[in-house]
């Protein structure tokens, strides 16, 4: 094969895969602006005859999407910030504090990662039910406050901070909490951003747990609301596409704004083996 032919083949393949990756999103966006019924015709249309906002208006007025959007934002932002603080304190302690049993505790945490989350769902649900947290934000916030993966990421990163820096701060009379807040956290900023995006997106996109603990429709997150809407509005393709657009847009924005940190996180997560 000549160089030129090879080059054309490679670029052509890459372009076809790019089109296949994007096509569902392109169709989703255009279909969301179509008039009712326009997405259910043969042959299928890609572009709407005219752009209408009907479905977005319906979602935000009649179908209470604002409430779901607020639920999703409060929960995702809340879990992200609380877990960042708790995980970073813990990761820092595992990296830089000396105490007996440290290795054993850390290793038992790591080996617990092989247990799939589904195993704990029923007991945690029952606990939260007896505590009265079902159908409140706490049902997602509390179990999400700490994660083993988060502690692991921070610990690996904090190991690279020189002990001398911490010693110097201690000589200056800094308390442990001051050292953490003024020395450790600023130095850990890149990993905190990385972990923050992972947590935010993971919480935003999560489906099974919110589906279980949010049974009252006013407490639905966007994915749960969308799944529920699907049951009643299966025929309203354009409306469902508008709902999908609104659910997806926030994660796309966060990803595009911080993609470098996200990609770095994938690499950090994959070197542990």
């Amino acid at each position: 094969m000549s160089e030129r032919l090879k080059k054309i083949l490679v670029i052509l393949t890459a372009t076809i895969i790019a089109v296949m990756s994007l096509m569902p999103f392109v169709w989703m966006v255009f279909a969301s602006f179509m008039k009712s019924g326009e997405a259910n015709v043969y042959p299928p249309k890609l572009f709407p005859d005219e752009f209408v906002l009907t479905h977005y208006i319906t979602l935000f007025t009649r179908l209470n999407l604002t409430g779901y959007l607020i639920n999703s934002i409060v929960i995702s932002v809340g879990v992200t910030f609380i877990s960042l603080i708790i995980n970073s304190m813990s990761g820092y302690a595992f990296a830089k504090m000396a105490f007996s049993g440290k290795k054993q505790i850390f290793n038992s945490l790591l080996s617990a990662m092989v247990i799939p989350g589904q195993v704990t769902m029923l007991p945690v649900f029952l606990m939260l039910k007896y505590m009265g947290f079902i159908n409140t934000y706490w049902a997602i916030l509390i179990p999400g406050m700490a994660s083993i993966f988060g502690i692991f990421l921070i610990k690996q990163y904090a190991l690279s901070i020189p002990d001398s820096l911490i010693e110097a701060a201690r000589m200056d009379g800094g308390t442990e909490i001051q050292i953490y807040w003024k020395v450790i956290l600023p130095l850990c900023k890149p990993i905190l951003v990385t972990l923050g995006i992972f947590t935010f997106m993971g919480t935003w996109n999560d489906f099974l747990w919110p589906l279980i603990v949010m049974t009252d429709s006013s407490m639905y997150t966007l994915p749960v609301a969308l799944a529920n809407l699907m049951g009643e509005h299966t025929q309203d393709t354009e409306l469902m596409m508008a709902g999908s657009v609104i659910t997806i847009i926030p994660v796309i924005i966060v990803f595009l704004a911080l993609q470098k940190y996200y990609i770095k996180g994938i690499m950090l997560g994959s070197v542990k083996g």
Partner: protein
Amino acid sequence: MKSKTKFSALLLFLGPSLGVITLFFFIPVIAAFSLSFSDFDIYSLGSWEYLRFVGLKNYIDLINDPLFWTALKNTFYFVLLGGPLSVGVSLGTAMLLNSKYIRWKGMFRLIYFLPVVTTLVAVSIVWRYIYHPRFGLLNYVLSFVGIGPFDWLGDPNLAMPAIIIMAVWKNFGYNMIIFIAGLQNIPEELYEAASIEGASGWQRFRNITIPMLAPTTLFISVITMIGYFQLFAEPYIMTQGGPLNSTLSIVYYMYQEGFRWWNIGYSTALAFMLFIIILIGTLIQFKVQKIDE
């Protein structure tokens, strides 16, 4: 040797995380294990006095439950076909983007990666319409090459393949990123030396790329397998486990038993079966990798 940190500081820094993980992970694991030997159901939910120890009954019932075997078979179908397919597409696209002929690598990588970050529920809904037998985009595109039309989600033989296609589309970008990094770590000299000795492209791939990527591939295979065993949202949204239970997965069955019918003892037994299967799968992959070396 550093002096030991004061207990009060440890309590402050480790207390919250270890407390939450113990209370909402370790204790629930033990509780789930205990519940799987009980007949905890909707009556026990109201009052604990109806709770009884039943020994291995839930596990024996599972083995005699045809739906459990159906769910198991479907999940294995998804994992054993979808897993290798995903890893293969990830490796293929990683090599494609690693090619010297490609310009705008960053843009291609971004586009390929977009499905990974998007909400699974939303894309499952989009794909449900793409798979529509009459108005769907996929059948329309296939009609140009004279294939179809297929009732993707309505045909018991096609529903799972349809879910696999969507899962590959959604997930390949993640592992692709890891493969790209792995490929970039292979020294260029190896390929040059092989070329001088007259090795073909396939031989270089087989004898350099594959062995050099082995640790990466193992890691990717394990995380992909673990993730795929937990199949839930796709069938929930696209097929409700149907048609004829052809897409009922273990997690979906666990969800139905536990949270729809409140057969909590039975459902936790199901969850433990899932755990054991994932554990065995992980160990097998490590073993296979060892033998290869």
